[in-house]
């Protein structure tokens, strides 16, 4: 199964096998990755599953939807070019090995 590497702000990493089609938020929650809160459970309603992805990676991520873009304006940690909501990113085979950086704060 393809893996995602969740990296904490302090550099600690967890490699997690993620079933295809799952969101990167769900996989984090089900594997008890610290720092992904996901208050709304994936409804794109709370901006507490904010992550930084794709820096230094050639992987093409799906474009940021209108709703996600709006919610990214409201994250607790600073928004960067690499900011995404992990509830909106679905696992694909191409994402295998992707590093997902978790911000220091979500709320």
């Amino acid at each position: 199964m393809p893996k995602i590497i969740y990296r904490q702000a302090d550099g600690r990493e967890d490699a997690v096998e993620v079933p295809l089609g799952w969101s990167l938020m769900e996989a984090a929650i089900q594997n008890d990755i610290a720092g992904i809160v996901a208050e709304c459970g994936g409804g794109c309603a709370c901006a507490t599953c904010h992550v930084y992805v794709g820096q230094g990676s050639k992987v093409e991520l799906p474009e940021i939807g209108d709703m996600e873009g709006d919610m990214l304006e409201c994250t607790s940690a600073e928004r960067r070019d690499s900011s995404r909501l992990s509830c909106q990113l679905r696992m694909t085979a191409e994402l295998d090995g992707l590093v997902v950086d978790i911000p220091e704060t979500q709320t």
Partner: protein
Amino acid sequence: MNPYVVIGAGQAGMQVCDSLRKSGYDGELILLGEEDSLPYQRPPLSKKFLTGDLDRDRLLFRPAAYFDKIAVDVRLRTQVESIDRAARQIVLGDGSTLAYTKLALTTGTRVRPLNCPGHELDNIYYVRTLTDSEMLLQRLASTERVAVIGGGFIGLEVAAVARELEKQATVIEAQERLMARAVSPVVSDFYAKLHRSRGVDVRCSSAVESIVESKQGLLVNLADGARIESDIVVAGIGVLPNSELAENCGLACNSGIVVDEYAQTSDPHIVAAGDCTMHFNGFLQREIRLESVQNAVDQAKVAAATLCGQPQAYRQVPWFWSDQYDVKLQMAGIGMPFDQYAVRGDLASQAFSVFYFRDNTFVGADSINRPAEHMACRKLLTQGTTLSVAQAQDIDFDLKQLAKAG
């Protein structure tokens, strides 16, 4: 020392356990749940779960391993008979007793049942528990026509799913408009139009007289003489707080378990949190019962803090959301009742917010497909920032900037 016991394994119960551990409580901790599942998310039960696209495992907040890791003894399929406050113990359904040092009640709500003639017939469904939704999901596969009784969030979300699954759908609402308790007439009208445009037969001011069986399925008889033919009925007519355990042991109750700003009940050893509480809300400065994820999470954190002797008052701004079709409704604050309102954006574009004012004070907003405005409103309400009607309806006025400025 006897354990801390949490009664009710929903979102609030789960959060109490999580927060107790994060606050440093390292004693024995027991979470009791009536259902046969680990704590799971309820919001998808009336939305995505009914489309069949979401396995039940994906509804769980956390896997079983998590509860082992934080040393929570989760006991499912466990009924609580009574609480003996004098002896500080609870009596379980099998007659055994469990002594506690501190107790948290996170018992939630149950659905308000229909009481019209015919309410006991087969093919009448409710949406509250995972089991409820699994039964409905299964039945939907062989269903052509769905009659929804109740035009609130749950009923409308179910109607939206039914249309997405290409079923016929009728919504029967007793009040004159949809979601009347939660939103303003502007928003109600928008949703009535939305549902009608997607093919739902929306009937407001329609009381249900009776439900009878017919050769073709069920007939819902309305007070105005109309008869709705359907294969199944889904009822979403509100919920009742599970406060009997608390009432029977003499805790103060009033349409819910009464707690103060610290989630404290009338017994110093017992806290309560979530849908089941009638609580003093520091933000609203009045007593209220809130049925929401936000309240379950935030009040549970307050309850855990109280149990740990680090009290912090509950002052969070309430927020809610509802997904119907591709339209997201997000509510900040409590807009009802209001004496002035302002619309920002264009209703026809299905992206707008409605701001509510009471005595010239901004008290809440409903945002339709406007998440950034919703988040800005939560911030403004939290900070108590002054917002005028003119600013609210001026699309060029920068709400986010105002929220940032504080």
